[in-house]
């Protein structure tokens, strides 16, 4: 496997130009997402989805206008990939998470599984779509289209380890400059998804940007879930067995009555 590649999106230098959104669509031939005036600041594409793989959020606050370009996190422990029944989602040699459209059968299971609400099913073709981290470009030795287009280097692409170091330094720098609200999001390998392959520098709480404050890969609890399901299955079997016992509830008069009247 090649080195793990990823994104560090430094929202403190994002100018909200949406070049990333457009470049992504252009390169990946993603269809438009409808023409809806949303009246949510300058955001008219709303959120990440099957037809928007980079999404620039605009948050108006007192004296501040936060802009942030969101993308699939390419989680270390990716729920979408874990739950995909067909193997359409796979982990590439760059340690990114990619859907193979020819294998995806549109079961839609990955959609609610993703703790970030990233992947979605395109109703037009009934398949799931999301950022591929420009797998084709990566294989060709090129950086992803969105990073390439970003004029201010808000989107930085590179080996994840390097990016993490750079991000640490950037936060320190911002803190030193008095921007105490700067914080990293998704960079820690100890978080609920084992760290994001695409992480962010934010200037406010994640939820302000529409990001979950403490996401956990749902499959972390899966063994437990199977255990509880096993218990329930056995209980079910047991309950059926009990139902056939003639004297199972001798002391409950009306139950007994019904049982006695069999045959």
């Amino acid at each position, binding site marked *: 496997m090649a080195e793990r590649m990823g994104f560090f999106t430094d929202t403190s230098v994002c100018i909200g130009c949406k070049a990333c959104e457009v470049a992504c669509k252009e390169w990946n031939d993603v269809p438009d997402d409808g023409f809806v005036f949303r009246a949510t600041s300058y*955001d008219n594409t709303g*959120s990440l*989805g099957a037809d928007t793989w980079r999404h620039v*959020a605009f948050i*108006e*606050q007192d004296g501040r206008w936060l802009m942030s370009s969101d993308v699939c996190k390419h989680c270390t422990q990716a*729920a979408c990939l*874990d*739950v*995909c*029944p*067909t193997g359409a989602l796979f982990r590439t040699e760059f340690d990114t998470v990619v859907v193979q459209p020819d*294998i995806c*059968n*549109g*079961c*839609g*299971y990955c*959609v*609610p*599984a*993703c*703790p970030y*609400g990233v*992947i979605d099913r395109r109703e037009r073709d*009934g398949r799931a779509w999301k950022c591929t981290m420009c797998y084709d470009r990566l294989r060709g030795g090129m950086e992803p289209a969105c990073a390439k287009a970003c004029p201010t280097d808000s989107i930085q692409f590179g080996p994840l380890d390097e990016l993490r170091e750079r991000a640490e330094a950037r936060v320190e720098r911002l803190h030193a400059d008095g921007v*105490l609200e700067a914080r990293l999001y998704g960079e820690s390998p100890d978080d609920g998804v084992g760290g994001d392959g695409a992480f962010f520098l934010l200037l406010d*709480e994640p*939820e*302000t940007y*529409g990001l*979950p*404050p*403490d*996401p956990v890969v*749902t*499959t972390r*609890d*899966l063994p*437990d*879930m199977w255990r*509880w*399901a096993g218990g*329930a*299955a056995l*209980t*079910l*079997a047991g*309950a*059926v067995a*009990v*139902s*056939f016992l003639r004297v199972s509830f001798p002391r409950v008069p*009306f*139950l007994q*009555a*019904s049982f006695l*009247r*069999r*045959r």
Partner: protein
Amino acid sequence: MARRQDEMVPEAGFRSYYGQPVIKPPIWHEPHMPAYLYLGGLSGAASVLAATAHLSGHERLGAASRMAAFVGASAGSVFLVTELGRPERFLNMLRLLKFTSPMSVGSWTLAAHGGLTAIAAAAAVTPLLPAPMVSRILPGCLGGRVLPFIGDASAMASAVTGPIMATYTAVLLADTAVPAWHEAYRELPFLFAGSALASAGAVGMLSTPRAEAAPARASAALGAVMETAAGIVMESRLGLEGEPYRRGKAGLLMKASRVLTLGGGLLAPIAGRSRALTALSGLAITAGALCTRFGLLEAGRTSAADPRYTVVPQRERAEARRLTVVPDPAAPPP
């Protein structure tokens, strides 16, 4: 500018991006998905009922349950395939078996279970068909001796796949980021199992002469109690994430389901007294089981659509963790 956001989300201290969901709501369609969940559960529990009936000599109940298991599995598959859009897409489900994917496990289970229940049901119906017809379809010995044997074996085997069928769907829902589902992963299997059992019991009592249907009634009653108990525990244990089960359309469906299931279940033990009671109990339970499925899906949707259910518990979790961690002096103030 902060104000506009606050107007949208009145809850103090909770912020969101224009009130938009953080996660994607499940995109499964209605009625396909709830119908599948109901039918799958029914089929699963019915096959256990069928096997046990066979072993204990309740042949009528056994045959009826075999049929219920078969119809449940096959009709359920139809709904599932419709949900996918194109039938051949179901085949992709069987490209591999993935234990991290409840849907993969479920698909294999459904495939196996569906096959088994089909054979079991075939064996159950052959004796009822006119012999010439049977011999026209099946080679002589098959119809006469082999099929009943294979049928019985399949019915026994389906008693193993059945409970998985009835409960994997709970894992299917729980293994998502949908707060109302994920957080309920302990109770959901019992809820599903109970509901499945009640459904199978109901179908059993509706389709078997009252005299032979006592175990079905018992199952129905036990299932109803189990489902209700699981539901109560779930809702009391879940905090904010349980709210969607109580509010709005999902709340109505879950309440209806509670009343119907419990009502039908409590009626079941005495339903043997009359046809009317049997019908009332059986139909109430069935309706209750359907309401449960629709309610669950709706609650999931609601809990995914409102960012509060995602954000608030996560924020609390993060805060709690932060408080237990030694504060880093360099860290920014919260």
